[in-house]
């Protein structure tokens, strides 16, 4: 496929920008780890633990989504 270097740089940049999603994955895993341990200790509190887990996951995922937004900006706007 032929193109110019700007197209190539855009694609490489978008790929590099997504490396930051690694942190999001680790954060979500840690949050679920804590929640599962909490439910294992106290199954009656499962509802509250689950709600707070979803909240924590959304915060951690937001940072990974910022990386995705930068990648999409690079691909589709610049």
């Amino acid at each position: 496929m032929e193109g110019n270097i700007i197209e190539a740089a855009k694609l490489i940049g978008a790929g590099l920008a997504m490396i930051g999603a690694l942190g999001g994955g680790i954060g979500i895993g840690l949050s679920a780890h804590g929640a599962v341990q909490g439910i294992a200790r106290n199954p009656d509190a499962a509802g509250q633990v689950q709600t707070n887990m979803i909240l924590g996951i959304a915060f951690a995922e937001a940072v990974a989504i910022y990386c995705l937004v930068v990648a999409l900006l690079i691909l589709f706007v610049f």
Partner: protein
Amino acid sequence: MEKATTTKWRWGVHRWFVLLFIILGYFAARAYPPIRPHVQLAPERLTEHPIVLPVIGEFYLTNTLVATFLVDIILLIIVWVVYRAVQKGELVLGGFAGAMEALLEGIYNMTESAAGKWARAIFPFFATITLMVLVANWMELIPGVDSIGWLEHTAHGGEAAQEIAPGVWALVKAEGEEAHGEGYMVVPWVRVASTDLNFTVALALISVFMTQVIGVKAQGAHYFTKFWNTKNLFTVPVFGAIDFGVGLLELISEFSKVLSFSFRLFGNIFAGSVMLFVIGSLVPVFAQSLVLLLEFFVGVIQALVFGMLTMIFMAQATQGHGEAHEGAHG
């Protein structure tokens, strides 16, 4: 006989419909291979010339604005349905009104457990933001949104168009090596409202601004000592200055909340719709349905998270420094 107690085993019907649609989809994808739509971050304008309104001035009608109007209409219909059900006077609402009641009761319980006596002031914001963002997010699952619209001639990145019914055109893959680049693209009539940064930033600004308003309502002018914290500045040696710096950081964090709210919602839903486009065009049979399922949950979770974070920040704003954990356990 035992027939009254045991249920008779029957053939499942829905699984055969799913199989039928997969087979039909395979043949449809062979006949008309799907084209990857043109993806752009900014919402597309539907009118060539701006509409001039008395107060606002020049105004372009974008497809996300059409989606926002549809969201409003759907919410008003929901209001009407629940109002009719409540007017009937039964104690236990059934059907759709009952589902809305369950949702709002869950939201009110969450608000009450976090905010205590300020729940009545905070609940409208939580519930409105959640319902509006939920309906707006779920609109991307409806077939026709993001895919049916005007055909626009474009200089680069376009596909060939073919008339499949009188007046109805569809983009098809060009046969042979035609001039790649020249062609048509689709400008959808309705595009998901949450993929427009205007919608998300506006909601984030409203949320953060009303947080400050509720903070002032709860604590009066003492609320602003959260940002301008000179209480310990001249009394305690080092930590006073640190507290002052923390107060200034809180001010910066309010602005970062606006960015965080808006980009969280925008990024999730825009990435979801791009994934729907790309996977729908790469693997035309059945794969897009799995992405649709994911987007269903992402829509719910993002709506709830937007509302829940708004509620939590408002509840935090009503509580000062000293009585931090006073009203939270009710």
